[in-house]
Structure formats: structure tokens, C-alpha cells
């Protein structure tokens, strides 16, 4: 799989300004035939802007683009597609009820006398999937496919349009580790067949494991170009952030484990919304001053575990004990008042009220408490000073407490959630995916804050799909597989390989050993 010498795509001194903001500053990149290129950068480094320029969504302020050695000037994605560019967006552009074939041919249907030739289309799709080794059922409705296969449909869509350059925007953000592996296999095959590929990502390890070359963007500037075989993660991380980064945070030792657990799940069974068993006989306990990390592939009962612990769904059997009280039938309000804090997986849909101001978001779930509120009347001054205090304490970068939260960056939004939940003075904290979509600097900060709370004696339940995260901060690790706890161990007594084995194979892994 050595890339050829022929230049397929080239940008020369691309600059894009939005008003005063320079999103791309003099960027020149080069893509060779059959090469996999990674464009790496933190959120807001200008990766997406660059791709949108390549794809004809934006026009560059200055600079030019060369495709197959010819100057091109796309005015719309349609022109870019016609010229052989294919884009797989982070959020798929598929019509869920239509079949794979229908989705692939959408907008390019083979037509005769006003009728779509479905049989011909299906054959073409089958032929395409055979040629590139992308196995798929052409008649399956897209909504019935798992995310990994939906992404495959997107790739096929681009190939159907004869794409010679494939651009993937954060392709692994929604995939499970197994699906990531499969995707990488596919991409390598495509590259071997002569397709050139650009991957936009903020995940170092991925960039290193799939790409031939890596470009690093920082604040709109191209700061490094590296050969993936020679670069190290530490080197890349430093380039991305612009200063040396501590990738592993110091893990304080947990305080005493002799005390009774603060949260104890006993034989907990929960059904999913569709009525299927989602948690089966789960026994877990969290002590004060420790972090219990729940590892597992997405969709193995994590959602239901969150909902059950915070009180957003009913349980089928078993019990949830908190501070030695059975709270199984308490609603979320009562649990929060009893000292439970919650950082949900998705800050946009559950963690924040985006059109609210910082002040308003920072009192969510505590607006009943004096001095913030007396006799049902909110005390604006207290609420604003609460916000000012927390903004300082948690390094939330925003102009004023009255700034709308939707205008903040992802990292700052997450800091708002963290600030609110930590300042509740919780005794127990449920944290789900606290660093999803954040850049290295913000991740480092949030780990530090979580550890501070742990040292203060808070019991923490951390749910994460990312093994690195679990190993970075958890003291004990449990693996959730098909709704069951299949493995539990102290963090220092196990390894990422062992936990990974349990994540994918469940109980089978135990027998194998």
C-alpha cells in the first residue's frame, strides 16, 4: 500500500476569513493518489472550514485549489461531486426509511421513460460493493442498519458518484471500537485500489493508526506535517495544543474503602424503552472517595444504567440503595436534592438549556434553594454572582453571566455543566462521557476537577465508551456487556487488553482465559 507519486489534490495558500476571524490562514496541503491523509486539530482549529472549502460550500478568501493538476473553483457541492470529490459527513445525510440502493442512487437515479430502473441500480450497487469489498444488503432499509453500516452506505454513495477523493469528517465519532476497525480495513482497501482519502479528526491515535501522513492545524494555521510512521502521539499532541500536554493525569489514591458504599445496586433489572431487557441482575457499589469506571461498547445498557441511577426510568426488579436508603422509587428531583449530581452524556440535549444564559443554566435543578430564590421569586443578583463565581472557579470563558450558552464552544459548555454539578456539593456523582468531543486541553482540565472531587470524598460512577478515559481516572473498573456486569477489577490489577476482551466477548472472555 505505498501511495503513488501522482498529486491528486492540492491546495495552495488557502486563506478564509469570516469578518475578523481568520479560520484558515495560508494553508497548503497535498494529497497523492492512493494516500490516506489525516488532518488533525482541536475543535475550532479550522479543519471543517478547510473541508467545506474543498467541497465548494465556502469560497476561499484567497488561494487556489488544484484537482488532478488543474485549477478548480467549486461554487457548490454539486460541482465538487461532479469533479470526483466525495464527502462523508459526521452526521449522515441518509433518508432512513429508504433502502440502501435507493439512498445510494438518490439524485443520480438511472432512469428510463421517467421510471427508475431499480434492478439495474441494485446490480450496480452490488457490483460496487463487490469491487471495493464493502459488504452490504442492497435492499435493507437504512434505518434498520447499525451505525457502522450506515456509514458504509455513505461511502458507497460517494463511490457510486465515481469519487476519486474521499473526505471523511470525524468518521469514528459515532462508531464502536469494533466498527472503527472495520472502517479502517475498508479505507485501507479503498486506498489500495487507488482512491485518495482525507480523514478529519481530533483523535491522535486514530490519525496515527490509519494515515500515511498527518497535517496538524492549530488556530487556522498549518503547524506541522508529519510522516505517520515516525510521529509519536506525544509529539502530535504538543503540536495540536501548542504546548507540552500531560496526557496522563496523576491519579490520587482513593480514600478508605472500608466504609459502607454510598451507592449500591442490587440485582438491578431494567427494561429498555422498547421493552427488552437492558440491565440484567446488575450488582455494583460505589464508595466515597473512589471512581468506579463502567467500560463497554455503546448500547450495552449504559443508557439505562444512567436513567435508573438518576431516576428517569422505572426499574423492573432489584434495588438502588443510596446512603443506606432504598431510593428505587424516588424521582429525579428527590435524588438531586439528596445530593446526587449528574453530568449527562449529551450536554446539548440533556445537560444544558442552550437558549438560556450562563446564569440561568447554572441554577438548573437548584432554582428552589435560597438564597437563589425566596417565596418563588428569583433573586437576580444572587443568581448573577453565583454565575460570576463559578465562571471564575471553573475557568468558563465567556463575556458575561448573561451570555447565551449556545454561543459558547463545546469545551466551555461542558465546563458549565461541570461547574453546576460540582457546585451542588454532591455526595455522589454520575458522570457519562464527560469529555466527548472536547479537545486535549479541556479533557485535562475536566479530569483534574473530577479528581479533586474524589479527594474530597465524593463517590463517582463514570460511564465511558473510551477505554483510555476509564484507565486515566477510574480506581475500579467494571465491564458492561449485554446489560450484565461481566468483569470487575481494581484498575491497577487489569490491563486495557483484558478489559477490551471482556467488552467485545462478554462472558466468553472468561472461559477463554
Amino acid at each position, binding site marked *: 500500500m505505498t501511495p503513488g507519486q501522482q498529486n491528486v489534490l492540492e491546495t495552495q495558500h488557502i486563506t478564509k476569513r469570516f469578518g475578523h476571524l481568520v479560520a484558515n490562514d495560508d494553508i497548503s496541503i497535498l494529497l497523492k493518489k492512493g494516500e490516506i491523509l489525516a488532518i488533525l486539530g482541536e475543535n475550532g482549529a479550522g479543519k471543517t472550514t478547510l473541508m467545506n472549502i474543498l467541497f465548494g460550500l465556502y469560497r476561499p478568501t484567497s488561494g487556489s485549489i488544484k484537482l488532478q493538476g488543474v485549477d478548480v473553483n467549486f461554487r457548490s457541492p454539486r460541482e465538487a461531486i461532479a469533479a470526483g470529490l466525495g464527502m462523508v459527513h459526521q452526521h449522515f445525510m441518509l433518508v432512513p426509511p429508504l433502502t440502501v440502493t435507493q439512498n445510494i442512487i438518490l439524485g443520480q437515479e438511472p432512469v428510463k421513460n421517467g421510471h427508475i430502473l431499480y434492478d439495474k441500480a441494485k446490480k450496480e450497487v452490488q457490483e460496487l460493493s463487490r469491487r471495493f469489498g464493502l459488504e452490504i444488503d442492497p435492499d435493507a432499509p437504512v434505518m434498520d442498519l447499525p451505525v457502522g453500516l450506515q456509514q458504509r452506505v455513505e461511502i458507497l454513495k460517494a463511490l457510486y458518484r465515481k469519487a476519486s477523493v474521499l473526505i471523511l469528517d470525524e468518521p469514528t465519532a459515532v462508531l464502536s471500537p469494533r466498527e472503527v476497525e472495520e472502517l479502517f480495513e475498508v479505507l485501507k482497501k479503498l486506498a489500495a485500489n487507488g482512491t485518495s482519502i482525507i480523514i478529519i479528526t481530533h483523535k491522535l491515535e486514530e490519525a496515527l493508526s490509519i494515515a500515511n501522513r498527518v497535517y496538524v492545524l492549530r488556530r487556522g494555521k498549518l503547524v506541522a506535517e508529519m510522516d505517520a510512521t515516525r510521529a509519536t502521539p506525544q509529539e502530535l499532541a504538543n503540536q495540536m495544543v501548542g504546548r507540552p500536554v500531560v496526557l496522563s493525569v496523576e491519579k490520587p489514591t482513593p480514600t478508605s474503602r472500608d466504609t459502607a458504599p454510598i451507592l449500591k445496586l442490587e440485582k438491578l433489572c431494567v427494561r429498555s424503552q422498547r421493552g427488552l431487557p437492558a440491565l440484567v441482575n446488575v450488582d455494583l457499589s460505589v464508595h466515597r472517595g473512589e471512581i468506579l469506571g463502567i467500560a463497554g461498547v455503546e448500547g450495552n445498557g449504559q443508557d439505562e444504567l444512567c436513567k435508573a441511577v*438518576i431516576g428517569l426510568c422505572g426499574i423492573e426488579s432489584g434495588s438502588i440503595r443510596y446512603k443506606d436508603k432504598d431510593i428505587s422509587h424516588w424521582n429525579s428531583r428527590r435524588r438531586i436534592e439528596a445530593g446526587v449530581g449528574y453530568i449527562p452524556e449529551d450536554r446539548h440535549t440533556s445537560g444544558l438549556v442552550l437558549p*438560556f444564559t450562563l446564569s440561568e443554566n447554572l441554577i438548573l435543578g437548584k432554582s428552589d434553594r435560597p438564597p437563589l430564590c425566596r417565596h418563588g421569586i428569583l433573586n437576580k443578583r444572587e443568581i448573577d454572582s453565583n454565575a460570576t463565581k463559578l465562571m471564575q472557579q471553573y475557568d468558563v470563558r465567556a463575556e458575561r453571566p448573561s451570555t447565551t450558552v449556545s454561543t459558547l464552544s463545546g469545551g466551555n459548555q461542558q465546563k458549565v455543566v461541570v461547574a453546576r454539578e460540582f457546585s451542588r456539593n454532591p455526595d455522589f456523582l454520575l458522570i457519562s462521557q464527560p469529555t466527548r468531543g472536547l479537545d486535549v486541553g479541556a479533557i485535562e482540565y475536566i479530569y483534574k476537577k473530577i479528581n479533586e472531587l474524589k479527594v474530597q470524598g465524593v463517590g463517582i460512577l463514570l460511564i465511558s465508551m473510551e477505554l483510555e478515559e476509564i484507565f486515566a481516572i477510574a480506581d475500579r473498573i467494571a465491564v458492561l456487556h449485554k446489560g450484565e456486569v461481566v468483569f470487575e477489577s481494581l484498575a491497577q490489577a487489569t490491563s486495557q487488553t483484558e478489559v477490551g476482551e471482556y467488552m467485545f466477548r462478554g462472558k466468553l472472555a472468561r472461559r477463554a482465559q
Partner: protein
Amino acid sequence: MIVLHVLALLLAVAGSVLYLASYFEGGLLLIGALVLEGFAQRKKLGKAAFTQQVKGLAQKSLVPVVGIVVALVIGAIIMALTGYDPVKAYEALFYGGLIKNWHVTVLNAVPLIFTGLAITFAFQGGLFNIGAEGQYYIGVIVSTWLGLTLSPSLPSWFGIVLIYLAAMLAGALLNVIPALLKVNTGAHEVVTTMMLAYTVRTLSPLFIRAFGGDPKTSSHPLATDAIKDRFWLPLFQSILPEAIYRLHIGILLAIVAAFVTRYILRSTNLGYKIRALGYNPKAARTYGIPVGWMTTTALLISGALAAMAGATQVLGLDHRMFQDLNAGYGWNGISIALLAQNNPVAIIFTALLWGALDAGGQYMARVTHTPNAIIEIIKGIILFLLLSESLYEQLKKHGFWKRWGRRRASRKQKEVAA
């Protein structure tokens, strides 16, 4: 500090009363109040923040103002094309709506303010109380009924307060049904409140027949008897003799209601929770806001506000219930609320605008024989232009204006070159 605010408020109230009572010098007091309040705000916020706030306000009102102007221009084009004189028609429209019949404008606006507030209150909680018309009707029915049957020995003010409370209660109770259906079964309030609106309307002839005059003279009365005059809302004329005789104090009640609504939504815990629910129900539920209870409360308060419109109309203006009460205040309240972008205080102004268009339109039709329908067209265009605000955003985002400018520039260059 607080002295300035109180002074501004007093000036504003005095100014409005005088103005409504046809002492137009009151307008000067109103302007004075505005300046005073601005001064107080500037002192409170500091110069930079104050300028920014004023700028923000100007920016917010830019789109509505442009929308209205464009709608008037399009209206003029339509008139010209259909053979009417737009200059004369607009002259009559403005003269009628703002000068000659300005009291009609105010009278039109009163119920619209209440129904607009009703829609807004529910909307802040993410609920679309599209059936405010029904709650308006129930307000009319209850206040007519009490106005006819309450003992005349009651003190006048007590009777009025009692009637208002009863009407509000009835409006709220009417919304208990959609609220329960929504909370327990998820039935959408748009459907249920609208159905109820038609139900109540269909029931109203029965009510009129029960209280409609002497059965010997008419078996199909078109209106109930007039309510006892001791329960009528006071007229401005009774305090200030020069006032126009039909103008009642309902407009003051409506303005107070707007500020109270704003206060509830912005400064109380209840309002905070309702808005959190409206913006993001999932986050609200996650952090322990009682979703069912807040939904119910928002719908009940919304119903009570809409019923206040009915009560004010009966006690202040009609003094009876008409059968062909085809006022549509509930439906128009939706337009008013949308136009005001769900800002309770802005509703006062959008309701006055709607009222002025109606009052001026009637005058225009009478004097220049331009059909009144043109006013409905203008209203429709205003709404269309404002609701397509996202259209402007899209155009801006895709650099449409810039590109257009560039294209013109390049065309000019070519012309020059040629």
C-alpha cells in the same frame, strides 16, 4: 436609584391616563418617562453596556419595522394594480387608525393584548395554546352570566373583581382537559384546545337563548340582555370629562397584565421552570423539574389570560354576549404573539398595531371605498415577512447580499470596460 424607576413608572401611568382621556399632552409625560427610565438604566448598567443594550433593542426591532414597511409598499402596489389610489387610501388608513378613530384602535387592542399574552405564556413552556378563542368564549359566557345574575346589592368594584376571578377560573378549568390529556396520554394540545374552542362556540347560542330577552318578542335572540350597569368597567369619561365616551379602563388592565406576565416569566421560579421546559424538556426532566405539573400550570395560566380578554370585552365594551361574536381574538392573538416574538411587553405594541390597522382599515373603506380586504393582505404579508426571518439569516449566511453586491460591481466594471 429605585426613586428614578418609581418616578418613571408614575409618569408613565399618569401620561397614559391623560392621553387616553384625550389630553394629548400626556404624550409628553410618556416621552419623559421613557427618557427617565433610560437614564436610570444607563446609570445602573454603565455606559458601554447600556449602549449595547440599546443597540440590541434596535437590532431586534429592525426586522419587524422593515417587515411592516415592505408590507405597506406591497399593499400599495396591489392597490395601484387593482385601480385604487394608494396615496389616498394610506392617508385615510393613517388618519383613521392613528388620529380620527384612535380610540377604536385602543379598544381593538385590549382583547388582543390579553389573548396574545395567553398564547405567549403557553408558548414559553413549549405549548401551543391554539384554542385561546375557546377560552375567550368561556370568559365572555361566565362574565355575562354573572353580570346578569349577581345581586345588585354587591359593591360595584367587588362584583367586577369577582367576575374577573370567575372568568379566569373558567378559562383555566377549560384548559384542564387538554392539560390532563397532554400529561397522561401525550395528546397534542394543538388538537385538543382547538376542538374545545369549537365546542364552546357551538354551545354559546344555547346560553344566549337562556338569557336573551322576552321570549314573546323573539324566539331566536341574537344577543343576551345587557348586564347590570353597576358591573361595567369604569369609563375614562367618568374621571376626565373630555375623554371619548366609549373608552374604558381595560387598556390599563391589559398593560398591567403584560408587565405581570413578564414578571412571572422572567423573575419567578415558576417562570424559570416553565421556560426551561419550553426550551429543553429533556434537560428540564433530567434536573428534576416536574414536567407534568409545569405543563398543566402553563396551560391553566394561559387559559385564564385568554378568559380575561372575554371578561374585559363584556364588562368594558359590549356589556352583553352576541351570537355572531365572530371576533377571532383568540386566533388573532397568535399573530400578535408571533409578531412580538413572544415578548410580553412587545405584545402591547403589536396589538396596538393590529388594532390600528383594523380601525384605520374600516375608516379607509368608508372614506375611499378601498376594500377592507387590503388590510388583511397587509397583515398577512407582515406576518409572512417576519416569520421568514430565518430566510434573512440563510441569505446572510450564504453571502447572498455580498454576492449580489459583487455581481453588480462586476457588471459595472464590464460596462465601464465596454
